[in-house]
């Protein structure tokens, strides 16, 4: 059951990276998460949004759609979707250190960070249609 939800649509400008992660983290503040949990959420969202900006919409500005939900038992759900170029090979893209970037300034760790900082990561992509990343996590019960 969805207890609360939030939708956000932003253009793929790199200046929106900090806005996106802080907006999502602020939405989940009502669950009174720990500082560590908030850091994990912010980092994972930042990675997904950066992927859409850097790879999805490589040479253009397009829209990024973020849908955040609070489910039963303090489970959180974040979907980040773009209508960009899509990923050729998802399995390869998810390998640590794999990057299509030739400048040497991208670490190729985006999906690895999302996997490590959240409980679950799902990636769906179609060439030319876009990419959807779904992040889920159960917050710890506060005593």
């Amino acid at each position, binding site marked *: 059951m969805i207890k609360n939800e939030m939708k956000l649509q932003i253009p793929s400008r*790199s200046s929106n990276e900090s806005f996106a*992660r*802080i907006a999502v983290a602020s939405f989940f503040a009502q669950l009174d998460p720990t500082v560590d949990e908030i*850091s994990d959420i*912010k*980092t994972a969202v930042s990675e997904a949004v950066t992927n859409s900006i850097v790879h999805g919409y490589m040479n253009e500005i397009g829209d990024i759609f973020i849908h955040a939900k609070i489910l039963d038992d303090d489970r959180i759900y974040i979907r980040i979707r773009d209508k960009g170029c899509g990923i050729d090979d998802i399995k390869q893209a998810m390998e640590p250190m794999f990057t299509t970037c030739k400048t*040497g300034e991208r*670490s190729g*760790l985006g999906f690895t*960070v999302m996997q490590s900082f959240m409980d679950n990561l799902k990636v769906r992509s179609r060439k030319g249609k876009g990419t959807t990343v779904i992040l889920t996590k159960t917050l710890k019960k506060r005593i």
Partner: protein
Amino acid sequence: MSKNHDWFLIYYLNGVMSVDVKIELEGGDMIAYLNGEIDHHGAAKIRNDIDLRVEGAHPDLLILDFTNVSFMDSSGIGLIMGRYKLMKDIGGALKITNPSPQIKKVMKLAGIDRLAVIERLKQKRRSDYFDKK
């Protein structure tokens, strides 16, 4: 309302400040005091500043100081690895000081602790620049 509300507002205002860097030379060492949040947007801005100074001064050691960095994602790893390669090319070394637990977590995931010394300083580094400001 959540008791975290004010805290988030402060955090948000910090976030929109993005990131800047102040670079100082101390003997043969170059210290880059990073300040703000390091993401893909911010990393691009400070990368050139650091590289220009390193290429000009050829320091033996480049210290990236994270005392005033409140957030970093994997774009910061790209920034560190790029500077590691640059220092290796000129025969120098890289050191990282005072990352927060969140930033250390990202660094360890990338194996940065195998490339550079990560140091927690008892005395927090303070740039003279910020004192003069």
